[in-house]
């Protein structure tokens, strides 16, 4: 969902000599978020009265905005320009920042839309705070990109935008997981750099602790929403939950492996890091999901590895082009589908949902 304009050669900022003293946007990052709509009537019918006490506590905490003022540059921020970043790391660092920005921006637009079109006051208040947080994160990342001479291009606003559709329950599963896995990723990176400050190649990582606490509390809200409507966590919906877990975990595994330089510079072993993130996410999701993927199953990691190898092969076929590679790609896609099915059919661990949803970000 991220791209740079004008089209570059694969290293958007690698060979540019930027003036270190100016923060002029010399390159544009074309934001291309998706636009969503949902069943707003169904969303309005959500009733949180069965979790009212926990809900009010969480909303009060979000209303007090504990992280207001956190996202400021202070003496902890080391000035950095693109010239300070090793050449081989630049593309991946920028990709990381742009992907994060796009995710925050899309979250902001989606949440704002839900706030605007809803009539249920509980829902509206929740989404207004979540939209606020995501916009704040996006602003902070945007500022970091400006250090590198990269500005956001809002050209998408005057292009034709097609509105896609999310069922409310899928919004809950997907955003719940994306918030919790986001927390797990950011806190794992933050803790890693606490232990290895010499590896911290960008100052933004120092802000990850509070940042991921926002993600964590957003996840808490979705957990309460799902728990207030227990049908979403039972019966056939368990199959959907499993599907979302498999899809999100596998995607993360593949995408992280596509950023070798980023992880090498950080001193992170990608596989170890990803497994740690899955462990934390699994622990977080015990508050509402009736099942967890079995990370220790002997076929789990080998299946993930195979999906990643196939994804790389598809990417290579894409790049080479031509009739032969197109046919090859179809075969590879079928192979990915079959491996994904294998992942999906691995036995899961049962989870008894606890009486209280609330969790503390203790990782």
């Amino acid at each position, binding site marked *: 969902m991220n791209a740079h304009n004008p089209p570059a050669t694969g290293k958007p900022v690698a060979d540019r000599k930027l003036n270190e003293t100016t923060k002029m946007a010399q390159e544009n990052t074309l934001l291309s978020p998706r636009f969503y709509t949902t069943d707003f009537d169904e969303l309005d019918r959500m009733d949180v009265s069965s979790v009212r006490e926990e809900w009010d506590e969480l909303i009060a905490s979000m209303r007090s905005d504990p992280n207001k003022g956190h996202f400021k540059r202070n003496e902890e921020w080391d000035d950095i320009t693109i010239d300070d970043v090793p050449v081989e790391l630049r593309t991946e660092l920028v990709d990381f920042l742009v992907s994060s920005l796009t995710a925050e921006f899309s979250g902001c637009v989606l949440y704002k839309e839900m706030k605007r079109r809803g009539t249920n006051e509980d829902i509206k208040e929740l989404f207004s705070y979540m939209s606020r947080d995501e916009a704040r994160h996006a602003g902070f990342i945007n500022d970091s990109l400006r250090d590198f001479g990269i500005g956001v291009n*809002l050209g998408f606003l005057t292009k034709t935008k097609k509105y896609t559709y999310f069922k409310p329950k899928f919004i809950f599963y997907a955003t719940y997981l994306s918030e919790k896995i986001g927390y797990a990723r950011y806190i794992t990176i933050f803790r890693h750099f606490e232990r290895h400050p010499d590896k911290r190649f960008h100052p933004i990582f120092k802000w990850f602790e509070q940042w991921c606490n926002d993600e964590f509390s957003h996840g808490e809200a979705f957990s309460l929403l799902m728990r207030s409507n227990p049908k979403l966590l039972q019966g056939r919906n368990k199959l959907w939950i499993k599907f979302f877990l498999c899809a999100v975990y596998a995607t993360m595994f593949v995408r992280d492996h596509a950023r070798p330089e980023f992880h090498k510079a950080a001193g992170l072993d990608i596989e170890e890091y990803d497994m740690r993130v899955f462990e934390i996410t699994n622990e977080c999701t015990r508050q509402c999901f009736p099942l967890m993927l079995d990370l220790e199953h002997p076929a789990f990691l080998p299946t993930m590895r195979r999906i990643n190898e196939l994804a790389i092969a598809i990417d290579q076929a894409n790049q080479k082009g031509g009739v032969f590679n197109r046919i090859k790609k179809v075969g590879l896609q079928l192979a990915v589908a079959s491996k994904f099915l294998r992942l999906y059919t691995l036995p899961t661990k049962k989870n008894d949902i606890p009486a209280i949803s609330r969790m503390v970000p203790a990782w």
Partner: protein
Amino acid sequence: MLNKLLGTQKQEDVDCTVTIVNTFESLEAHVRFNDGTTVNPGDEVVVHGRPIEVPYGETQSFERRATVKRAGAVERLWTRATGDFEFMELCEFSFSQGALRPGALAEEYTS
């Protein structure tokens, strides 16, 4: 496209307000239809006029005309059935073509 084939596309022209916040504190962009028009699955929206740019540090609103191209019944059903699978974009590691090959999407946008 499906709409064109089925000849079911209806269009509405409406006034809208585009609000952009491009500051350190916040980065957001929102389009609001002034008459309360709502968008449904599969609809397409285009805001007319020059590309919108807001300098860093500023918040601005723009009054523009927009066209809402309504999806036909088939297109709407199709979007409802398949839209959910685009959810991955909400993750920071969003699985997007061209994420590491920056030209790809830019080309898509300029074509």
